[in-house]
């Protein structure tokens, strides 16, 4: 009895804190999303006369619709690149060697750097007057366009930077999965005369498919949060070419003061993230059931 009381006592403070700092803000966000709240308009925070006005406006808001499309492009492209390149890197580094083990640590650097430092690094790489990229192009007598201010390249520039930043994550996950594959399998296939490509396709890939999917899902959930890169490199521009939903919500609330409307955009975004997260849990369960 004393033990059960202790367990309850150990858990309760955290639950109270989490309720106060996570559940209450979420409720408050939903409440403000039902109002035309603007800091400069007195009484707007408590005006519930037309609660679903913000949500009704969303489908007809070209910037919101565009932001979803930009988000989809950014997320799909960067997740695909990260999973693919992460896998290739993991295959390359999956060798038993002291040197390689030592080197692995350095491959993780981009992921652990503060996101704003990553953004500064890429700001530098994309700055024509001092960038090594532009120096190299110049030396080869090749003219690079201004990547971050070009309608055609700005989103690609963000995708490249985001891929660089999070590639180590998928690499780390895939490498962990690769190391659980017993060598006997590939050796047996090798003895049977299978080519390296065949071994990869029929032995390695089935083993790592679950982890490829899971790490991709994690990256997908997180790709919604790519803020510093967009903030520093393009500011959502040129025009709205790189304006993802997260950034649009930020501009609405803290630039144009449309707090109520921004809350509605954020609520929709939250629902999308929750949907993906639930899908992830469901897949995790299914994987456990299979194992």
């Amino acid at each position, binding site marked *: 009895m004393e033990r059960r009381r202790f367990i309850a006592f150990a858990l309760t403070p955290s639950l109270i804190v989490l309720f106060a700092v996570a559940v209450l803000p979420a409720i408050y966000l939903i409440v403000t999303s039902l109002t035309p709240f603007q800091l400069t308009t007195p009484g707007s925070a408590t005006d519930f006369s037309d609660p679903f006005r913000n949500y009704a406006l969303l489908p007809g808001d070209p910037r919101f619709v565009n932001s979803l499309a930009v988000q989809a492009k950014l997320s799909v492209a960067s997740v695909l690149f990260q999973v693919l390149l992460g896998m290739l890197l993991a295959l390359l580094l999956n060798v038993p060697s002291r040197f390689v083990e030592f080197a692995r640590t350095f491959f993780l650097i981009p992921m652990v*750097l503060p996101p704003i430092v990553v953004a500064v690094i890429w700001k530098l790489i994309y700055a024509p007057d*001092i960038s090594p990229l532009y120096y190299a192009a110049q030396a080869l007598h090749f003219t690079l366009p201004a990547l971050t201010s070009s309608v055609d390249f700005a989103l690609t520039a963000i995708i490249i930077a985001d891929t*660089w930043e999070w590639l180590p994550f998928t690499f780390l996950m895939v490498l962990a999965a690769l190391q659980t594959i017993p060598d006997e399998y590939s050796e047996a296939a090798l003895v049977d005369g299978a080519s390296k490509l065949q071994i990869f396709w029929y032995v390695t890939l089935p083993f790592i498919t679950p982890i490829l999917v899971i790490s991709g899902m994690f990256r997908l959930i997180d790709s919604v949060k790519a803020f510093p890169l967009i903030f520093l490199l393009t500011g959502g521009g040129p025009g709205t070419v790189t304006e993802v939903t997260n950034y649009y919500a930020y501009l609405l609330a803290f630039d144009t003061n449309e707090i109520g409307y921004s809350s509605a955009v954020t609520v929709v975004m939250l629902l999308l993230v929750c949907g993906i997260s639930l899908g992830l849990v469901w897949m995790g369960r299914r994987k456990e059931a299979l194992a």
Partner: protein
Amino acid sequence: MSESSFRKATPGRLVAITVTLLILLSPFLWLLQMSFKTNDQILQFPPPLIFTPTLENYISLWHSAFSASFVNSLLSASLSTALALLFGVPAAYALSRWAGRGKHALSFAILVTRMAPPIAFTIPFFLFYRWIGLLDTITGLVLVYTSFNLPLVIWMMQPFFDTIPVSLEEAALVDGARTRTVFTKIVLPMVTPGIAATAILCFLYAWNDFFFALILTRTNARTAPVAVVNFMNYEGWEWGKIAAGGSLVMAPVLIFSLAVRRYLVSGLTAGAVKG
């Protein structure tokens, strides 16, 4: 044969690994070398690869408002780490030992609070802080950082407690010890490495934050990541200072993350917050 004959560290492979590493890290190395150059050297074409390194940029940062923002970062990150551990470690123990129904649902609910995009918290926090006067204060930052570090602590510490056999505790309980004593005297010392790793990850998450600090601070509580960006907006494009500031912001991260490399994945998958 104990050594695998299939995966081999051939010389060709080692060269490929080294080249890949250099390409991957070159953007990062470029920033680092630039922090030791004068502005003239930075603008030179072709860029001098061999130059006399100068500490000029770092020295001028030391004498600027940047040092205060560095202290703000240190303070808010360490205080929020301490708070998150204080609340989270007992909670993780409780969840680990609690066999009741709803345990998984509760663990998942705790994790979900971390998966939400930061903007979902910024709007309510901003309005609330504005109302009670916590905008631009370290207290305000500590509170919001604790809100995303607490789920991380609970999520990361639980497996550590899971590895400690309950029979060990039961033996002590039979001998008449109180649960509280068992927890502080027997269980806690056994999970010290886990606490250390968790603490470092919490510190890093708070230290790396840009989004919350950008919105919830102005000048008094401005953190180092925001200060670096301010070099771009107001003082022109002083690339030397920007590079030095960036290098200083990433220094603790690089040191600490090497220390907790083994726990990075579990820490990151607990819903990375990159605002």
